């Protein structure tokens, strides 16, 4: 992954004087935000493999990938929003709404699979339009907007489905297709995992190499400066919320395939889990700093802890505790690195 555009100015500052090793580390972490989560991931992998060799078996690693696929996808959208110094609390509600609408349309109205999937992504886009419009046109803070839409979308989903789930047998094959697995060597990969991998590549490429990506970073770094530099801030922000929404719609499709049914009780902790992955992945909650690959590492770290501690026979609450510590650590590192710029 490439460096963030803000790194260049820091390099010039640093060239002016000798650096201590600590400053050098600070500088490297600033230039490559994904390094800290990568170290954590490697360390976690080593420790858990040592405790229980089963952990590193292809079968068990395949399952970790399948388990983090949905949150991993949601975290892509969450990363985009957080990069612009926003936050999206409506992630879970939008995903459930998209999934239930797609499933109900397919079941009740006999909509073919392709259209049902499109409808789910359409719901995501619509939700993104609502969130984005409220943020840009009315100028409400993203936290408040998505806190509101979390309730609204959640309520609509429940009113619409009357709380009932749709079993797999009533769904077109295409909706379940994301849960299908195929072997790659000794690994078993699901279609959902492939979709998430493609998603990371596409969005990661867009963030790292396109003008749009640079605008997203610029807005997160300093909205006013971005405006003065001629970036159409509102338009870019709206595109971020629309993209995030479409991604939640895609995640809904992956979720149906994995769960084997569309149930309004699914992914109760999606909001917090997606934010957790982004934060552990080294993306700054203050906006403008972070890389998408970090988010992927963050989601994998949580997945490794879940599987590793379970195989070690440790109570799951220790995973919750460890993840909490990681979040605090990640934010502390972020604050420390920010001093490079000042």
């Amino acid at each position, binding site marked *: 992954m490439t460096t963030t555009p803000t790194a260049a100015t820091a390099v010039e500052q640093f060239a002016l004087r000798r650096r201590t090793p600590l400053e050098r580390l600070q500088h490297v972490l600033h230039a490559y935000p994904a390094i800290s989560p990568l170290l954590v991931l490697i360390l976690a992998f080593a420790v858990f493999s040592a405790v229980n060799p089963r952990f590193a078996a292809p079968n068990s690693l395949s399952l970790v990938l399948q388990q983090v696929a949905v949150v991993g996808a949601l975290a892509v959208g969450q990363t985009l929003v957080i990069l612009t110094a926003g936050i999206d609390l409506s992630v879970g509600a939008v995903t459930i709404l998209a999934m239930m609408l797609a499933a109900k349309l397919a079941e009740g109205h006999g909509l073919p699979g392709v259209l049902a999937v499109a409808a789910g992504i359409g719901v995501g886009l619509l939700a993104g339009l609502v969130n984005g419009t409220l943020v840009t046109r009315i100028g409400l803070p993203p936290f408040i907007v998505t806190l*509101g839409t979390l309730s609204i979308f*959640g309520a609509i989903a429940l009113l619409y489905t009357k709380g009932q*789930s749709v079993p797999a047998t009533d769904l077109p094959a295409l909706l379940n297709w994301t849960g299908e697995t195929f072997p790659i060597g000794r690994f078993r990969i699901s279609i959902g995992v492939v979709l998430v991998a493609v998603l990371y590549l596409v969005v990661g490429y867009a963030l790292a190499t396109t003008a749009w990506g640079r605008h997203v970073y610029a807005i997160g770094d300093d909205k006013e400066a971005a405006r003065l530099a001629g970036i159409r801030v509102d338009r870019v922000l709206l595109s971020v919320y629309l993209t995030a929404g479409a991604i939640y719609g895609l995640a809904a499709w992956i979720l149906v395939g994995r*769960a084997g049914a569309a*149930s309004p*009780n699914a992914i109760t902790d999606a909001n917090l889990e997606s934010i957790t992955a982004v934060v552990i992945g080294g993306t700054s909650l203050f906006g403008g700093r972070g890389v998408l690959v970090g988010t992927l590492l963050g989601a994998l770290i949580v997945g490794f802890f879940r599987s590793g501690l*379970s195989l070690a026979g440790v109570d*799951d609450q220790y995973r919750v505790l460890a993840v909490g510590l990681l979040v605090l650590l990640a934010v502390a590192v972020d604050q420390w690195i920010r001093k490079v710029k000042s």
Partner: protein
Amino acid sequence: MGLHTGRRSALLLALATATCLVATGCGGGSDKSGDDSVAVALITKNSTNPFFVTMQDGARKAAETEGVKLTLAAGKEDGDEAGQVQAIEDAIARGDDGILITPNGPGVNPAIKKARDAGLYVIALDTPPEPANTVDITFATDNFKAGELIGKWTAKQLGGKPATVALLDLFNDKIVSVDYNRDQGFLSGMGIDTKDRKVNGDEAKSGSYSAGTYSIVCNEPTDGAEDGGRTAMERCLAKNPAINVVYTINEPAAVGAQKALQAAGVKDALVVSIDGGCNGVQQVKSGLISATSQQYPVKMAELGVQAITKIAKGGEKPQTTSGLDFFDTGVTLVTDKPATGVDSITSADGASKCWGKA
């Protein structure tokens, strides 16, 4: 507010409405019920679980028949005590005659006491509170017995083969009675010593059940949903791929568990569950679930509405089933592979008595 509200207030209004729909159900205004009409509040654990949705439908129908004014409310999720306390306070303020509640935990007990002190008759549905005399009476499934039925059936089906058991519970971070009653009931039915009947996972990890030897691989939480059931089963299979008995807290969890079993190529495991919803009975028919204990939420709601109506009009109070501290609304084993000595009905019969939608 006039019709010409600004965008902001419109948003706030929408927010308030949405929040209030999610949190409390927002019954009609505060019109005190007159002395001639009976008013009842039904407060469920949440409004998403088909079980509670069915219960709400049953209560609505019963209320229509009896000419009762019914207000529906629910917690945001299983375990949301604060939302239920609010709903109880609303019912007292409305001047309802009685409350039907599936309590989310001991945190609602003080509010229930307040309601009874205010003269409301309080009936717990589905989940007896701790202690049971917190409410006037409970109408519920004997969850321990429901677990016991699938446990006995499993022991008979194995016919002496070693049992490698996965226990897919509801939570691992909250203790709720339905969770330990079903789990420990299942193990008791298998003939396994559960040690403390109110604690999941404290039993010996290996030993002998009524017909052979057993080993318990895992206790994993599912949140009672498909995706949770799948992840839980995957974790159990990672520990031991030779699992041949899977207990699940409810049918959505069983569906998720089956997905994981199929993905791992395990075909002959016995998957047993509890609920008897129409989806679940359908799964029994298709062979995804081997046996399930069916319960009757509509009956609970109907009996509840009828009881409060009767009391409000000066009639008799209902009595508990003998030997239990609640009124048992019954449980039946549904399976297409009957076992000798364990009463059961077929999936076809189960489908005629099931709840929710197929």
